[in-house]
């Protein structure tokens, strides 16, 4: 495995043996360690000193299912701290099969220029002029690339939002159907790519470089057992293929944790029009796909293809976070409008979570009425055309709040919260506040600990026990993000035997004994590294707080506020 170092200022490409100091690291562990080592923490995230790192998970490219995750890392222009955002599709698998463990993009092309990085089936890399792709939205960009380079390439690119360096800009990547509908959405990393003048990364899907594994037999046996567990699990084996992540809409709404009308309410009146069951029914009636494979090596098939009444493709995949961000959060119960907004965000290259939050703040500040989906669509379009209001929306909820002098802005470290209000799910308050990533649900999703009707383990309305649960989950997830296991395939490691299979695979790949302590140490290393970067960038414990509204405004219908104290927050990662 090699590192590919690309210097855009000098327009040079340099292959490097996998550095000893990064051996055994992949995904988030690799991007965060490298960013912490190479990026001056106080530098301008959109300046030449920032580096953009693409790193497949440690298990990506192996025979283990559901491991086609690519971590993208850099200093975030949105949060001002370190960022890792990961994406599925085909790119991670393809890179590993070309023998590439990481791409490190340094410097920037002169302003006004635009390049792409092409890695062909022989593993040769070249920087090529991409002026003809400039300004294109992602679907058009990919179409043009496929015309020129053929269909057997994975494309990871930015849209107009990234080129304009808007702070909610995503990096979009193609799925198995060649559509740029998979997003490394969080933290504005599309703006970093745009600032560097890199429009697209093209990776051949024809690589055949074998993955180095010390003990093939052990790895194969553990990977096979893992896959069986994923398929046997009710959530990953039955619910996700049938309903996708939209199956979460009803339960989270019932828990009063579905942020509605810019987090003024915890339940959405129009929920039955946008829940997973309705979406599955509508998709089937219209001839779309409810069971759809989006990523290499996937056996869950949680993706879907949402189509119009006439059966025409609208978007893929319509997922829980977007259904909330473009639905309940802005008071919109029009499913077709939600699907259109999802497509627009993918096409323009915007994070749906941050953009939905930005729209909600604008509406809450009086710009429009909750439920006005036509205005929401217009504003997202304007993010691409570059009007002043469009730029505000594309720069995220903090920018909108500042413009309207409106303080009901649901962000931490500048990043918009996801679809779980932390007031009835206090463990999510801890995760949002203390994650080095800013408000990030995937950093430590502790919803299920709070919501079990039969044998629940913790009271979601109380602070007791939430710090420990969030801490343990954040450490675990930092390790999961490093090996590249998809969030939805965690059913494979949910039991003692399941996680033991992961340790076996780690040991088999590394060529040494691997234990639970090693796994925990990996997660702690990642979080310590990220906190170290953030501290050196100027972050203090005061940045590990939620906005005042979550402490002061009781959320209907349960009328709870966040009760986790500042001292408890500070005890989460007392490094």
């Amino acid at each position, binding site marked *: 495995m090699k590192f590919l170092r690309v210097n855009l200022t000098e327009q040079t490409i340099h292959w490097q043996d996998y550095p000893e100091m990064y051996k055994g690291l992949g995904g988030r562990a690799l991007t965060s360690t490298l960013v912490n080592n190479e990026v001056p923490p106080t530098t301008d995230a959109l300046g030449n000193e920032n580096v953009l790192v693409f790193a497949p998970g440690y298990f990506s490219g192996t025979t283990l299912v559901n491991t086609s995750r690519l971590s993208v890392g850099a200093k975030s222009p949105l949060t001002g701290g370190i960022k890792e955002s990961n994406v599925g599709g085909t790119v991670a698998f393809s890179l590993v099969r070309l023998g590439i463990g990481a791409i490190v993009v340094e410097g920037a092309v002169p302003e006004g220029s635009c390049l792409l990085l092409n890695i062909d089936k022989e593993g040769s890399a070249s920087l090529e002029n991409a002026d003809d792709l400039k300004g294109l939205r992602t679907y058009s960009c990919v179409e043009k690339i496929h015309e020129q380079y053929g269909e057997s390439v994975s494309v990871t690119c930015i849209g107009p939002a990234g080129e304009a360096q808007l702070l909610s800009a995503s990096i979009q990547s193609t799925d198995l159907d060649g559509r740029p509908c998979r997003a490394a959405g969080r933290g504005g990393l599309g703006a970093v790519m745009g600032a560097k003048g890199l429009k697209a990364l093209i990776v051949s899907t024809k690589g055949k470089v074998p993955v180095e594994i010390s003990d093939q037999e052990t790895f194969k046996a553990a990977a096979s057992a893992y896959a069986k567990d994923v398929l046997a699990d009710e959530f*990953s084996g039955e*619910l996700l293929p049938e309903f996708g992540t939209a199956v*979460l809409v*009803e339960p*989270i709404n019932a828990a009063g944790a579905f942020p509605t009308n810019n987090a003024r309410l915890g339940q959405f009146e129009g929920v039955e029009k946008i829940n997973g069951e309705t979406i599955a029914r509508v998709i089937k009636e219209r001839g779309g796909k409810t069971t759809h494979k989006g990523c290499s090596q996937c056996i869950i098939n949680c993706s879907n293809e949402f189509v119009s009444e006439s059966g025409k493709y609208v978007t893929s995949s319509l*997922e829980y976070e977007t259904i909330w961000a473009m639905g309940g959060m802005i008071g919109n119960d029009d499913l077709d409008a939600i699907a259109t907004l999802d497509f627009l965000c993918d096409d323009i290259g915007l994070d749906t979570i941050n953009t939905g939050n930005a729209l909600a703040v604008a509406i809450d500040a009086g710009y429009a009425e909750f439920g006005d989906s036509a205005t929401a669509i217009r504003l997202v379009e304007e993010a691409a055309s570059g009007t002043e209001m469009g730029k505000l929306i594309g720069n995220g909820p903090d920018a909108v709040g500042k413009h309207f002098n409106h303080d009901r802005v649901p962000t931490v470290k500048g990043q918009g919260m996801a679809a779980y209000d932390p007031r009835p799910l206090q463990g999510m308050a801890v995760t949002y506040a203390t994650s080095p990533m800013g408000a990030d649900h995937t950093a430590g999703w502790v919803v*299920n600990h709070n919501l079990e*009707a039969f044998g629940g383990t913790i009271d979601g309305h109380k602070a007791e026990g939430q710090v420990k649960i969030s801490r343990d989950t954040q450490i675990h997830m930092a390790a999961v993000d490093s090996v590249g296991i998809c969030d939805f395939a965690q059913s494979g490691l949910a039991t003692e035997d399941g996680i033991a299979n992961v340790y076996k695979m780690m040991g088999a790949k590394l060529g040494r004994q691997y234990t639970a302590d090693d796994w925990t140490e990996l997660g702690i290393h990642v979080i310590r590294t990220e906190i170290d970067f953030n501290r050196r960038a100027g972050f203090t414990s005061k940045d590990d707080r939620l906005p005042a509204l979550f402490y002061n405004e009781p959320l209907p219908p349960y009328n709870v506020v966040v009760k986790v104290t500042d001292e408890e927050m500070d005890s989460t990662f007392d490094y």
Partner: protein
Amino acid sequence: MKICLKLYGTLPNYYQGPYQSTGIAIILDHGATVEKLADITGIPKKRIGLVSINNRIAKSFDIIPDGAEVKFMPLIASG
């Protein structure tokens, strides 16, 4: 007493009887709990991740009032 039961996710597959998405009417004894309702439906309790009564989260021991709308939802994991 009569209540309306709505099932989500794949739970309709486990209901012992015809199910329609608008919900089904079920006759219960006064004082019946969520657990009792689960027994009547035949849906394995391990499949029921979350229950609400009139849009408020309920536990297995909660008593269901007359005319209530009860929702059985599946187990969930990370979204």
